[in-house]
Every structure is written in C-alpha cells, then in structure tokens.
C-alpha cells in the first residue's frame, strides 16, 4: 500500500466496544472524505492518526511512519480535532504562535506564520481576543489555523464543519479546495454527506468500525448492482415514453410519479443516457428534464449501510 495514510486490519477497542474493527483502507493524495454515521469510528481513526491512541491490532502509517509516536515527521502533519476545547485564556494569535514555538519554529518565524494562517482563516481582526470569547465558528477556524500554520503535507480534519453556519461552511470548503490546489493532502471526516460531496469524489465509507466502500463515489455507485439506479424523466406524455422505454432490457421498473414524470429504475444508466436521445429523435417524444436521483453519496451510503448490517 502506498497511500498518504495506510491502514491494514486496524482494530481498536474500548473494553467490550470496538471502535474500529479490522479497518483497512488506503488514503490517496488529494482530498479524501471519511464518511460515516455517528459512532462509526471516524474520531477513533483520527485519534489513532494523531497519536492519542494506539492500535490494538493491525498497522497504521501516515507518510510512511507509524502513527503511534513522536518525531520530526509530525511537522508534516496538521491535526484539527473534533472537540472544541482550546486554551481559553489565550488570544487567537498567542495560541497559534505558541504551538508553532512548541513545534520548534523560532519566535519571529512563528509569529509571521501565525499571522498568515490566521489571515487565511479570516480571523485577523479577532486575533487578539481571548479564545473564550470566540463563537463556535471562530473556534473551528482558529483550530484550522493552528493546523495549517506550519504548512504540513497532510492535514487531518475531524468534523471541521460541526457547528459552523452555512456561510462559514462555504468559506471553509473553499479554503480546503484551495489547500488541495496548493498541494496539501487532506483527510476530512463528516457525517454531513453533501458537504463532503462538494469537496471531493474520493471517499472512504465507514460503518460499525469497518470500511464498507472506498474510492470514487460514482464508481462505488455503479458497483452496487443490487440497487438499480433511479432516474427521473420529466415529459409531457409519460405513457408514450414508458411504452418505448419499457422494452429495453436494462430497465428494472417504471413508475408514474405525477402527471408529467416517470421514475425509471435501470441497471445501466449509461445505456439509458445513450439510448434516450435516439428515442427522442426517432419517435418524436418530448423530454423536458432528466435527473439521476441516487447517484450521490447519501444514497450510496444508505445502500451500503443497509447491506453492511
């Protein structure tokens, strides 16, 4: 395995409860989303990566180094934990600068880097305020600032969008895209699937401590043979269209949902996409809209979770 992070059979238990259970995944360069419901094991995985916990079984490496332990390689890693706890008595600038000093940066450089990171997350005006006066969104941003200030190669973000308002989420998402464009590798976790979808198409899906799928969202969707794709077609005359479409082999079923809508279940959406325009031209049927209802992360996750139970 040659990913940025490689996990092979990772198991971590808390007494009788298994946080991770034979978790195996390779996280490629770029942005990878770690998605799963609450209690799936996402935070446990991040804590293992951050060196807070040690695996009970299996191996876990990041940037080629074992996850448990200190070392200079940690300078190449930035971690933004899920919890909101900070050194409340410090100012934002003091917080980021101090952590850079702990990382071994000289005072002047630490201050300069802190200023840049704080500007990146848009907290320059509030940098001198005590952290206890920060709102939730500001706390998330200052955590992100300390995470990126030392320009790590790998950024670990555990639920960074938690408690952030929609405007803040959009800003943070844009920031993450920019970080990726600048060459950083990011592993970001969330249970808010549509937010991850906007960031990346590379995902690792986790449920009950296990990987249930990993890779490109669309490819994963294609591989779920047991679930035909659901495609909605808006047209003025659905019965006419249904008569023609129903003859195709890859069509599993057709439903009439509304006066001007067909809901088609197909095992091969590509075949339908290529045949439908020909049908329109040849038969003169009219189609006003076409949408794939379940080619998204939420649907994929639901199908896989139900299968994993």
């Amino acid at each position, binding site marked *: 395995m040659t990913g940025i992070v490689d996990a092979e059979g990772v198991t971590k*238990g*808390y*007494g*009788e*409860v298994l946080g991770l259970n034979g978790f195996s995944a390779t996280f490629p360069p770029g942005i990878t989303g770690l998605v799963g419901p609450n209690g799936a094991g996402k935070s*446990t995985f991040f*804590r293992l990566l*951050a*060196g*807070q*916990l*040690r695996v009970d079984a299996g191996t876990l490496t990041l940037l080629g180094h074992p996850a448990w332990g*200190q*070392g*200079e*390689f*940690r*300078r190449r*890693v930035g*971690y933004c*934990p899920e*919890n909101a*706890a*900070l*050194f409340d*008595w410090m100012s934002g600038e003091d917080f980021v600068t*101090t*952590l850079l*000093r*702990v*990382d*071994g940066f*000289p005072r002047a450089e630490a201050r300069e880097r802190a200023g840049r990171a704080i500007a990146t997350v848009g907290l320059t005006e509030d940098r001198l305020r005590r952290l206890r006066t920060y709102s939730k969104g500001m706390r998330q941003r200052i955590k992100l600032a*300390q995470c990126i200030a030392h320009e790590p190669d790998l950024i670990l973000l555990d639920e960074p969008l938690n408690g952030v308002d929609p405007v803040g989420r959009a800003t943070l998402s844009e920031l993450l895209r920019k970080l990726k464009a600048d060459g950083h590798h990011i592993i970001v976790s969330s249970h808010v699937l549509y937010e991850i979808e906007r960031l990346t198409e590379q995902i690792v899906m986790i449920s009950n401590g296990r990987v249930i799928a990993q890779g490109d969202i669309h490819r994963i969707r294609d591989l779920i043979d047991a679930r035909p794709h659901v495609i909605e077609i808006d047209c003025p005359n659905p019965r006419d269209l249904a008569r023609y479409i129903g003859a195709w082999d890859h069509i599993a079923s057709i439903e009439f949902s509304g006066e001007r809508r067909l809901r088609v279940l197909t095992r091969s959406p590509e075949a339908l996409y290529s045949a439908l325009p020909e049908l329109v031209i040849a038969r003169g049927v009219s189609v006003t809209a076409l949408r794939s209802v379940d080619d998204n992360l939420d649907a994929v996750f639901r199908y896989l979770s139900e299968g994993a139970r």
Partner: protein
Amino acid sequence: MTGELSRLVSVASLSLRGSLRGPRLIGLAAFALVPTLIVAAIASAHPAPRALSNAAEGLFASLTVPIVVMVIVLVLSVGQFRNEIDAETLVYLTDRSVSRVVIVLGKFLGALVASLALILPAALLPLAVASLAGGPAYAAKVPVVLATSALLAAAAYGGFFLLLGLVSRSALLIGLLYGFLWEELLPLLPGDVPRLTVNFYLRDLLARELTTGPLSGYPAPYSIPVGLAVIVFLTLLFLAMGSASLRYLETSPEREAA
C-alpha cells in the same frame, strides 16, 4: 537556542502562563499568605522576641512545607496533565513534533517556577514579619536554607504529583492521601519507617544546616550531600516515570469510556 531546548522553553512557558492566572492564582496566593498572617497574629500579641522568631522559623516545618507547599504543588502539578487530558487540550502538544520527554520536562519546569513564585514568599515573609515585629535578626543562612528546602520540596512533590496526574484519574484522592497522610503520619512512626518520606530528608537537611533553633531538633542521620542526592534522585525518578508513562500511555479521555 537548539531545537529541543527552545521547545522545552516553549512548553515550560505555556505551562507557567497557564498555571498563574485567574481565580486559581488568587486562591493560591491567598493561601500562601497564611503563614505570614499567623506570624502577624502572633506578633500582635507582643510575645517575647525569641518566641516570635522561633514560631516563624518553626512554622516552616509544621505548616509551610506540609500544608502550604503541599497544597500549592498538588494543585499546580496534578493539573498539568490531568486537566489537559480531561479538557482534551493535551492533543495540541502530543500531535506536534516535540518529544514526549520534553513535554513532561517542560510541564514540570513550568509548574515548578509557578509554585516557587508562591512558595518562596510563603517561606520567607514570615521571617521578615517576625524581624520587623521585633524578633532578633536571623542568621543569613536561615532564609537561604528555608528557600532551598522549599525549592527541593516543590521539585520532589511536583515530580510526584505530575506523574500522578498523568497516570491516575483519582489523582486528587491519591494526592491527598500521600500528601497529608503518608508524608505527615509516617514521620511519626518509629524505626526506619520515616525514611520512606520526602519530608524526612527535608527535615534532615534543615537540622544539618540549622544547628540552632526549632528546626534543629529533627533527626539528621544523613549528611547534606546524601540528603540532597536522595531528594534529587526521587525527583528525577518521578520525571523519568512520567516521561515513560507519556510515551506509552494513551492520552485520549475516551480510553476510560468502557
């Protein structure tokens, strides 16, 4: 500054600043004034000068070290790791490139300096009050010996409580039992049992150095270098155990969840 040294200073500075702030600082500073207030109360009754100066000196061993030093060091040292593990802020240090040994040493130094900022006035101000209130002047070595003993006490107890806060969720109970039972009751027992306490070696040093006065009466079977070596050895031992613990212990609070 070399890399590790500058990181040590950064961790120590963070620890020191975190220790000396807010209502906790006010409470501890007020508590550190207790020996001074007691001497002032005695002085207000205009006792014989020798009685006043002996009381101020004797209070060091009967109150300042066993109670005031113990409370201040317990609060500041146990909290270094225990508070951060519970608040989940320790991750900001452990996920950095700084070694865990440096984290332990840095926190120890920060807590030690913070403790001394409160303990040294607690040890020396009573002598000053007694002198000002008409007690005979102390020999120059008296405040030096008391200050040195306070430093050694803060270092040894600080190392132990730092370790305790790292390895135990019941650090409060164990710290109280150790500080106020083990260190206070064992010296009262006969035979070699008192040698199992740090207090014994502190009193040995005091008796060796202050050959007159209320502190000279403690048993002093060991020479000064030996007594010093024992206390320093214990301090280093606690720090080594703390470093080893932080290297191998998991520091996520959820490890106790099940």
